[in-house]
């Protein structure tokens, strides 16, 4: 690596600023495709979810899926985009075996939305970035082509199950300034879209795909800025890959610029593919005139007008976005921005669990600590969803309440939590079976008198004004009876000593 990319907008002399824009495709969470009633279920056997429309057979006609359009509008609204009152679709013409019609139905000059933004704030304060959205449009996906090189065949296999699946394309301004920011922003975008129910954003299943445009701004001694040629990176299969590919590409461009001095405009935009195992980007063959898509209006679809009522309905269906939820949790429950971030990033269901717990406990900070230290940790170890988590908020609130009441201490509480989790029994049941029945007052009184009698040195210290010496009695009490409450032992012992 040459110089580390600067997180600042203006690079210091001898270094550079990395300029990054992203193009994200997300598959919308619909039951059917964009223009026909074929299902969009992932993983079905090849070519079993196709019909004349998505096969592009002559005579078939597309009809727009209302839910897909509504989800796309919801996403655009959440990205603070302006929704166009009038929108239409266009044909993007190119030949590829996974595109049976010979064109993709997309949007060219009148996308349904434009000009929004999504902000990402690092919870530890490392950066905060408002990223402009140039446009969001609605289009159909292509099919899948598979080439099995190991089999040594000369053929590619085409599966058209995915052809016609609804996609939102989200194009950002080149507002990101480091690979870390790009990754964090993608996480925020994914969280938002999952919260909205727009997409499951599963990268493994191709529900979210990212291409990145990157170049460097390099300040010269005379105050001008050199800009390296823009490279589009493709083939990144995880947000981690995006971060790595951008870091690699920034370093590669820096070295290339030092060697050649080549600047933006001296060469056409280059496309490079990310090779994840090798950790490098590689130049892809330049397809001659491949960008000449000869868009023209799609004659088979009529335009869509969006009314104020439509927008009001879409807004009502949105719910609170993650950024708003973080603020709301911090205000309502008095937890830190960092804690709110951790909870919100786990999804809407976990936030609902937390709010129910915090409401029952009546104290946000304690509930948040239990969520992070116990619930989340266990959930990560076990896997599964919070909705299927065996310890429900009421049971956890019961444990926390008993700790607060002095029935037992926090470490005992954790044991009970683990036992409720493992056995699925009630808290009361577990408390009884572990012999954690609260020590009754007579037994406590007897135990404390015994300890006071056996420890004249501690008694003398306490009488001499060193109340903290009573801690020694608590330790001994716990050895004799693990169920005693430390606070109660302390209070009782001090009471006995004072009465001597």
């Amino acid at each position, binding site marked *: 690596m040459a110089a580390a990319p600067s997180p600042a907008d203006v690079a210091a002399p001898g270094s550079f600023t990395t300029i990054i824009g992203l193009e994200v*495709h997300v598959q919308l969470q619909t*039951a*059917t495709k964009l223009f*026909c*009633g*074929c*299902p969009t279920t992932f993983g079905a*056997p*090849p*070519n*079993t*979810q*196709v*019909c*004349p429309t998505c*096969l592009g057979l002559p005579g078939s006609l597309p*009809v*727009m*899926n*209302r*839910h*897909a359009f509504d989800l796309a509008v919801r996403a655009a609204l959440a990205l603070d985009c302006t929704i166009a009152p009038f929108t*239409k679709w266009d044909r993007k*013409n190119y*030949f*590829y*075996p*996974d595109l049976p019609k010979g064109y*993709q139905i*997309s949007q060219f000059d*009148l996308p349904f939305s434009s000009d929004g933004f999504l902000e990402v704030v690092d919870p530890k304060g490392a950066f905060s970035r408002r990223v402009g959205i140039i446009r969001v449009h609605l*289009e*159909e*996906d*292509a*099919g*899948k*082509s*598979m*080439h099995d090189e190991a089999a040594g065949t000369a*053929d*590619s*296999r*085409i*599966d058209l199950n995915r052809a016609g699946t609804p*996609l939102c*394309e989200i194009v950002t301004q080149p507002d990101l300034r480091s690979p870390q920011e790009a990754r964090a922003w993608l996480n925020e975008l994914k969280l938002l879209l999952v919260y909205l129910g727009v997409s499951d954003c599963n990268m493994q299943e191709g529900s979210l*795909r990212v291409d990145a445009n990157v170049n460097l701004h390099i300040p010269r001694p005379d105050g001008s800025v050199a800009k390296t040629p823009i490279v589009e990176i*493709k*083939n990144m299969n995880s947000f981690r890959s995006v971060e790595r590919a951008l870091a690699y590409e920034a370093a590669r461009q820096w070295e290339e610029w030092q060697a050649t001095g080549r600047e933006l405009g001296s060469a056409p935009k280059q496309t490079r593919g990310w090779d994840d195992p090798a950790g490098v980007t590689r130049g*892809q*063959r330049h397809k001659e*005139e491949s960008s*000449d898509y*000869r868009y023209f*209006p799609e*004659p088979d679809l*009529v335009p*869509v*007008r969006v009314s104020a009522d439509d927008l009001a309905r879409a807004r009502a269906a949105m719910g609170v976005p993650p950024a708003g939820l973080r603020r709301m949790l911090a205000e309502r429950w008095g937890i830190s921005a960092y804690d709110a971030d951790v909870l919100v990033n786990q999804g809407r269901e976990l936030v609902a669990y937390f709010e129910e717990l915090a409401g029952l406990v009546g104290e946000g900070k304690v509930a948040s600590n239990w969520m992070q230290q116990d619930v989340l940790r266990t959930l990560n170890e076990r896997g599964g969803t919070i909705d299927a988590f065996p310890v429900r908020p009421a049971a956890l609130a019961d444990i926390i309440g008993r700790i607060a009441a002095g029935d037992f201490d926090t470490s005992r509480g954790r044991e009970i939590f683990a036992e409720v989790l493992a056995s699925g029994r009630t808290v009361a049941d577990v408390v009884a079976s572990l012999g954690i029945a609260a020590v009754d007052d007579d037994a406590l009184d007897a135990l404390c008198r015994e300890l006071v009698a056996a420890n004249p040195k501690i008694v003398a210290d306490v009488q001499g004004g060193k109340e903290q010496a009573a801690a020694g009695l608590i330790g001994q009490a716990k050895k004799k009876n693990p169920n005693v409450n430390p606070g109660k032992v302390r209070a009782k012992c001090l009471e006995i000593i004072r009465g001597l």
Partner: protein
Amino acid sequence: MSSASPSLSRQDVAKVALLSRLALSERELDHLTGELSKIVGFVSQLADVDTSAVEPLAHPLDAQNVFRDDVVTPSLARESVLRSAPRHDGESFLVPAVLGETGAA
């Protein structure tokens, strides 16, 4: 393009042929350059009409907001899907090797 000088070069036609995946012979290229130039000329006459006060037409039909509900309808049986394909393996269409990425651009 103004109607005064509708012209299409041989190069233009060669490029359009490439984009359309048409392999044209030299003779066809010459012939089509003339023919397509004429077509462009015909269409260019529209440029003589003053359309400054006319709103662009997105669709010839006076219809909008035609939607269907997000309800699954039966797909085709795979045998019938593949039946007309020049080559298939019973599951997928077979085509000459495609290298590089797939998916919507």
